[in-house]
């Protein structure tokens, strides 16, 4: 990379060099070639978009084709049945997943946002313990879900918390799993709010917390919401940790937070997919459709909320 003779700080050199190269290319080369490049690039971008859209469509279509024989009301209101899979339903699993998600949201929103606010705005970056916390969170984002299952079994179901094989334990385990997602997304959201907003508020005499609460968090709300949506979506689909923490594959009663067995949609689907009988495979595909439906409704609510509060700087 050639260096400039100007007194620009190093960090802007990359951008300045880019601009310079661009100017030279405009005045130095034929513009037809550039137009072609532009168009080709745009085409590549659209191809990428198409691939992403097609993947979602393919999965949806596949689930509909495989599962449509079972798309009836029984699927939602009936209990599971190994005797008559043709009329079996996912009711306890739907309720179980809903209770689990409610618990997860109740945990990750306050803790996640609080952590992000602390790390971005209150913590002194120089201190070693703050950098340790930061490294921690980034690391947790990559720990496999099954390891959280091991953690949940050792410390939440048994060990210090001893909640037993109940919904609350499952919620907490999955919440810990998706917490880093919320924290990282919230940090990005807070970071994207220009610091002039915060500094202006401070200059007017507000305390740091007042400024954060009233100015920064409101401004960062859409980004935080994105993080929560992504976390919830991931939480709904996780089967591996729940299997270890006690989600059963056969219940016929409604779940309770602190007692009794429970099930969850992905756990049941995974179990059904592994059975030999064809009717269970159809049931599994239908279950995937139910999960997708649940997912889309949560996403739509969040999108609507976000659309109302998005702003550009």
């Amino acid at each position, binding site marked *: 990379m050639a260096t400039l003779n100007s007194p620009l700080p190093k960090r802007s050199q990359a951008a300045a060099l880019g601009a310079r190269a661009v100017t030279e290319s405009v005045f130095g080369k034929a513009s037809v070639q550039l137009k072609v490049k532009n168009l080709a690039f745009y085409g590549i971008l659209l191809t990428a978009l198409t691939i992403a859209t097609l993947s979602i469509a393919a999965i949806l279509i596949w689930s509909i084709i495989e599962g449509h024989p079972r798309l009836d009301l*029984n699927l939602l*209101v*009936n*209990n*599971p*049945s*190994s*005797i*008559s899979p043709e*009329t*079996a*339903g996912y*009711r306890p699993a*739907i*309720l179980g997943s*809903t*209770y689990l*998600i*409610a618990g997860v*949201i109740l945990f990750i*929103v306050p803790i996640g946002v609080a952590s992000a606010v602390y790390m971005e705005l209150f913590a002194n970056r120089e201190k070693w313990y703050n950098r340790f916390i930061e490294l921690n969170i980034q690391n947790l984002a990559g720990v496999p879900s099954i390891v959280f299952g091991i953690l949940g079994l050792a410390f939440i179901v048994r060990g210090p918390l001893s909640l*037993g*094989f109940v919904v609350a334990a499952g919620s907490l385990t999955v919440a810990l799993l998706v917490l880093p997602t919320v924290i990282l997304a919230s940090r990005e959201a807070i970071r994207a709010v220009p610091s002039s907003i915060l500094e202006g508020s401070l200059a007017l005499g507000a305390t740091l917390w007042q400024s954060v609460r009233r100015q920064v*968090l*409101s401004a960062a*709300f859409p980004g935080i919401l994105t993080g929560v949506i992504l976390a919830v979506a991931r939480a709904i689909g996780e089967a591996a940790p729940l*299997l*270890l923490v*006690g*989600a*059963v*594959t*056969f*219940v*016929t*009663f*409604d779940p309770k937070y602190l007692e*009794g*067995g429970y099930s969850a949609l992905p756990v049941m689907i995974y*179990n059904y*997919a*592994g*059975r*030999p*009988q*064809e009717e269970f495979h159809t049931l599994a595909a239908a279950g995937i459709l139910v999960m997708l439906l649940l997912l889309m*409704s949560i996403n739509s*609510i*969040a999108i609507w*909320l976000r659309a*109302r*509060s998005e702003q550009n700087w």
Partner: protein
Amino acid sequence: MKKNLIATLAVISASAILLSACGSSDSASEDTSAATTSEETTQETTAELSGSVRIDGSSTVAPYAEIAAELFMQENPGVQVSVATSGTGGGFEKFCNGETDGSNASRLIKDEEAAICAENGITNDNIQVANDGISVVVNIDNPIECLSIEQLSAIWTDGAALQTWGEVPGLEDSEVKDVPLTLYGPGSDSGTFGYFTEEVNGDDGLITTNFVDIGEDDNALIVGVEGELGAMGYVGWTYYNESRDQIKALQIDGGNGCVAPELENVASGDYSPLGRGLYVYASDSSLQREEVAAFFSFFLENQAEIASLAGGIPLTDAQLAENLAKLDGLLS
């Protein structure tokens, strides 16, 4: 922003309430969803049973336990029976910790596990609830009909590296002598794996490293064997029975001639040595509870119907009598 948060929470709680409300036809839907006919041999529960029964363990035995649970709950709606599938090993761990009332197992308890149970004071015994015949499956176009245990051992034992069917002792001049041999088998976390290796190769875990490990996905094994002429694999009987139009099973010669893995042969014990039992372990402390004792009795007394609904193989009369006696022993 506060309003938005409240709105979000409101919507979520509303949907939760809605779902639970629309499903309050709990007892109604249970009646309509389960099969109608269920011939009872005994059972007139005079008093209403209530409580909960927690079963965990092998995913092979789980379908039987689930059907038993469904039928049992039709008669005793006050009892909540749940069945989980943490695997035979995981089931034993919870069972010996006192966290479950019954443990589904596709193998007998190992010494290390029994030691933990003894440490925690859980006296237990195995109740056999069904039979299973491990079926050796090959491609449907494979002309071979029967293999002996010795031949199987030559193919599967530790150190074996056969490339074609012609290398199998006894098949050097057969039609398939030039067909490449591909082996499929469940992973070492499977009870089927443990049983097969012990019976065929002489020791649990003694096996060639030259096979395609399908993990726990028996359906994938069927797909694999179906797709290749020279493929061979082994699965539990229900998987074979459900896929008869995709693959075929070999007859096995255990020293008494070729025996096919058919229901009668497995139930009578002729299909040896690849016939095995499926068990549910019960502990005497859990059996103190009325509902648990009632569940186990129900399970055994209706095992024929349960096995047929599960697509499996029932117990013989002798086995049934033996296990009823075992249950009585634990109950007293």
